């Protein structure tokens, strides 16, 4: 018997041909089905391999983070706890970093969790200049720049988040590249970065963007940014300007009114009242009413009473609560709410009115007792509900 040794190419060709002729034996539908199934499986295999590589890379990264933490955590704490501003050479010596120290992207990234931990632990006693120099010694600003300028959107977004978390420095020119990018999430993070660290007036971009989408997520984040700016003595935006902004964005206007309320800018109340007098949109009006009420702006009472009868149930509830919050002891307000309690049909409005009357000082309590004495079997449970301190204790504590 003769034996032939096949070359590598012929060897593969042999098996491909075997597969082809085996396949050719089957009827056409089966062949199509098998090819289709093979393609499906190939796709699944690709997904599995991709994810496996990602998981493996993540696992290696976690090990690196652990290693860095073990090695540098205490040294980093030593650097940031020094009252005196250290020279870069001193920081390098404390960290025991080699000369001409260069890091790969992965190594830089692995320092972030440790830096965050140091920042969290030393939040009270941290020296800000030493912290900045520490991040510079670890070449973090350069790393963030390279990440933001990379092609990967995830890296860009993550870099913006990390800069905010670490309170690190970043060139304004780099960050401002994405202020008007089409990717909404990236745009939001770039703008948040600008809003957090901008030294001039970083909110201009919000005021001028005609396509601005202002979600609840942005409301939360911008508020936190504003708290940060106030804490660090940076310029605060002019909220009233946002309210009167052109082009109009309702969400931003409502946010501005809410910020006036939360930052207790009582000097803006007169302008808010003027806006309320001309406002027709329910959500914006409710925000204005709530702000004026919580800021206890007594001149607004008259306007509240004027609006009341033509308002929707939701607006009425907000108006009643605002009148209650002002609590000027005005007998007109009480009689007005009592009248509405007797007339309205909406359950929630009735409960709100009754609660406000009950808490509206002596004059309110007298009116409440009178209402209680005249209560019908239908309305009697409302009174017991209002008088019970345990109900809604979480909310009204």
């Amino acid at each position, binding site marked *: 018997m003769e034996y032939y040794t096949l070359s590598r190419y012929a060897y593969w060709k042999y098996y491909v041909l075997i597969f082809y002729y085996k396949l050719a034996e089957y009827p056409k539908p089966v062949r199509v089905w098998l090819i289709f199934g093979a393609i499906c499986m190939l796709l699944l295999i690709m997904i*599995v391999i991709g994810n496996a590589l990602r998981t493996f890379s993540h696992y290696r990264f976690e090990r690196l983070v652990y290693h860095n933490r073990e090695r540098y955590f205490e040294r980093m704490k030593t650097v940031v706890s020094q009252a005196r501003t250290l020279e870069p050479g001193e920081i390098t010596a404390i960290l025991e970093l080699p000369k001409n120290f260069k890091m790969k992207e992965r190594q830089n990234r692995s320092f972030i969790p440790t830096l965050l931990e140091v920042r969290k632990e030393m939040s009270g006693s941290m020296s800000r200049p030493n912290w900045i120099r520490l991040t510079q010694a670890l070449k973090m600003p350069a790393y963030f720049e390279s990440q933001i300028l990379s092609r990967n959107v995830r890296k860009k977004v993550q870099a913006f988040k990390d800069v905010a978390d670490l309170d690190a420095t970043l060139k304004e020119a780099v960050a401002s590249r994405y202020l008007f990018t089409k990717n909404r999430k990236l745009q939001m993070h770039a703008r948040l970065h600008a809003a957090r660290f901008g030294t001039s007036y970083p909110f201009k971009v919000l005021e001028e963007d005609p396509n601005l989408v202002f*979600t609840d*997520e942005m409301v939360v984040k911008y508020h936190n940014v504003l708290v940060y700016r106030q804490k660090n003595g940076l310029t605060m935006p002019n909220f009233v300007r946002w309210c009167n902004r052109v082009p109009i964005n309702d969400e931003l206007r409502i946010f501005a009114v809410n910020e006036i309320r939360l930052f207790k800018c009582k000097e803006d109340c007169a302008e808010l009242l003027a806006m309320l007098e001309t406002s027709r949109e329910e959500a914006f009006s409710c925000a204005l009413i709530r702000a004026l009420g919580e800021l206890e702006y007594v001149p607004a009472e008259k306007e509240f009473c004027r609006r009341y009868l033509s308002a929707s149930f939701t607006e009425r509830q907000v108006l009643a609560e605002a009148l209650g919050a002002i609590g000027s002891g005005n007998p007109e307000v009480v009689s007005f709410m009592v009248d509405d309690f007797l007339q309205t049909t909406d359950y929630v409005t009735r409960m709100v009115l009754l609660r406000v009357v009950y808490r509206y000082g002596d004059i309110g309590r007298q009116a409440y007792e009178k209402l209680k004495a005249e209560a019908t079997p239908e309305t009697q*449970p409302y009174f017991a*509900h209002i*008088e019970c301190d345990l109900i809604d204790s979480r909310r009204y504590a």
Partner: protein
Amino acid sequence: MLEWFDTVFSVFVAIYSTIILSSYVTMAILAFMEHRKHYTYHDDAYTIEELKKSPYTPGISIVAPAYNEEKTVITNVKSLLSLDYPDFEVVIVNDGSKDKTLELLIENFDLVKVPYAYVEKIKTKPFRGLYKTKSDNPAFKRLTVVDKVNGGTKADASNAGVNVVSNKFFVCTDVDCVLDQYALYRIIWPTMASTRRVIAVSATMRMSNGSIVEEGKMVDARPPHDLIPLFQDLEYTRSFLIGKTALARINALQNVSGGFGMFDREIVIKAGGYDGDSFAEDMDMVARMIRYMCDAGEDYRIVQIPETCCWTEGPPNLKVLNRQRTRWGRGLFQFYGVHRDMVGNRNYRRYGALTLTYVLFFELLAPVVEMIGYITVVWFILRGAVNYHTIWIAFLGLYIFAQLLTMVIISYDTWVGTSFKRKKDYLWFVLASLLEPIIYHPLNTFFSLRGYWKHIWGTQMVWGNMTRKGVQSVKPTGPKPMAPAAPQSAPEEKKPNA
């Protein structure tokens, strides 16, 4: 005639299986895209920090019906009260329990009956009273206990809870579920990040059988080591990480699980609340919410989040599994009877045109087709009309495909990052995957057909008790697990349904 039947049947099976396979691959790809998007833009720790310090963080109400839960109710309510979130309330609905559930709650949380002005926005069985704590403990102040006459279903109890919640969003869960400490942050975030109105959010659920739970908190998530719960864990993971994630990607999610899901209270009330007569009340609720939104011409989104937020105890044996799956089968059949006008209807957008049509052909009718397939193969074998070579290739191909799909699930689970701590635990999934097509799948087919049969012939359905073994608990100081809790009963089980 026979040849004609053979050809038609073969072509039908080829087309049917090709569509199923391609739908699985499409869903795996869509899920991949969704996970990648989530991975790109979502940072769990960052989100939690932002929400923690913001006064704008919306409040959430947790509604948890309880029926004869005296064995675990205290631990589980304490666990719910200890969740990390700035503003939430826990509403426990005692659905006319016959044991000491209510008495234990009153005793342990220092509760008193308060004169609450109850308004029945959604019709339920009579309300008996509402209890609040008189204790100064701020955590206890978050607790509200509603007592009502037993309605026989979780739907009725949930509706009573919805009637008293005070927040815009409420989470519907069960008292026996173990929630992740940060579950509320995760589930509220999509409602805030979306530019469209999010009416419901679904989160990933897993089996708690085999896991270690301490004081109602998940300490160590492990795969179940018993076959039946293990199969279900694999099924849940597949359903949430591929099926539901893919459907949510195209805004066509058909079900938010009754075990853990968040809903917009206003839309739920306008849609009429849960249907007490439905055996698939969670799927029915979502359908009615979508119907309401589409009829009103409003835009909406239903979101699925990949992180595991809730662990539930699955049926531990065949008997309970049979009862559960029979009811689910019946519920699905009933659902299509009630919402038949939505199927293939483009007025209900992708949900009606795509999802309901897909579920009709490849979930509702799949057990029927499968049973016909079994019978026909036996008949072909008896006639000697089987090409064994082809049939083995087909079986092998499908088997390998199923294994690959499991690999995809495992890879997604590790990617999402809320999975088992020990990677070797995934070997249990591989084992389940190897056995599933042979053992679990035929059983499920049989149970579903039984459900359809019962629905068609109108057999009286008894909800029955769900026998629970209890999850493993450990003492805070000792590593050794304690003996499992005594069996208890619950009105119903949770359904992944995708």
